[in-house]
């Protein structure tokens, strides 16, 4: 008896990207509820308020003003309350060092930002369905690494 949709949060300072993402999620088969945040500080304030429902899946833009995606990742990973949250980093960087470092810091997914809507939809669909398998089959999230 699993709940029918997943809670997704997205932190990105670029308004167009946020819109892109929310539109793409609406077209996926797996239903989702998406909350968006404009920067890392806004996101962390939301997460730290225990009245708010935690997202199951969090998308972090690496380059954000005020607080970067990497800083958020490190903070989230040191807090036990968030240990079930799956974290997807997305960035325009494809430097192997950057990518491996985010994984080592605890990210589960690394997405290279696609530059067209169709690819984005495909990528997000893959992320959400893979996440769904972990979510519904009790797979070990510590071993959940995915690069797209």
């Amino acid at each position: 008896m699993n709940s029918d949709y997943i809670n997704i949060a997205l932190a990105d300072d670029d308004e167009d990207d946020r819109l892109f993402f929310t539109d793409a999620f609406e077209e996926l088969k797996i239903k989702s509820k998406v909350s968006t945040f404009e920067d890392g500080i806004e996101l962390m304030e939301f997460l730290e308020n225990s009245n708010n429902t935690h997202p199951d899946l969090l998308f972090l833009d690496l380059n954000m003003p005020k607080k970067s995606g990497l800083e958020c990742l490190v903070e989230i990973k040191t807090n036990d309350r968030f240990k079930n949250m799956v974290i997807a980093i997305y960035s325009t960087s494809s430097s192997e060092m950057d990518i491996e470092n985010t994984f080592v810091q605890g990210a589960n997914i690394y997405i290279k930002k696609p530059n067209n809507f169709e690819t984005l939809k495909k990528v997000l669909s893959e992320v959400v369905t893979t996440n769904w398998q972990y979510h519904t089959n009790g797979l070990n999230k510590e071993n959940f690494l995915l690069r797209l």
Partner: protein
Amino acid sequence: MKLLLKFDFTNVCNRLLEEKLKAHHVNYRQTAFGEITLLETVSEEQMKAFQNDINFYGIEILEDPKNIVVQKIKDVIVDMVFNEKDVNVKTSVYLAEQLDQSYSYLSNLFSEVTYTSIENFIIIQKIEYTKLLLTKEELSLTEIAYKLNYSSVAHLSKQFKNTTGITPSAFQRIISKRKENKEN
């Protein structure tokens, strides 16, 4: 004095259900009459208590028969992969035998419910088992490929990369660096 009562059954049922769900702190949404969607996972204990409570009023929870079949398929696959069952026949034949249904029926049902195919689910499980053996048992990829009946290491390595986007050795490196970081 006699009172004659008229019942609005739909309303009675909905109200009762609402009251009971609230009493058990279940976060839900009603999706149809006699159908609710749970918005967060409910512990087994909580579910049992809730079930006992509503059974008293003659309400029963019906399991979706489709989900039961899908769960059986998953159980057979997980058992096959993680217990390294030596299955001499093709997996499709094995599943059809174990569940006593045609493979095409099982396959369609599975895709409908899980958003993935049986074939893909098997690959996911094999790769998960590979990850476990790589990190916990520290087996080499060659040993794992042999254990899991892959035709070659290259085949397993390729499937790992296709499924996760990273190579088995990068995976191993990341997991061991995470461990080091935790220890420091």
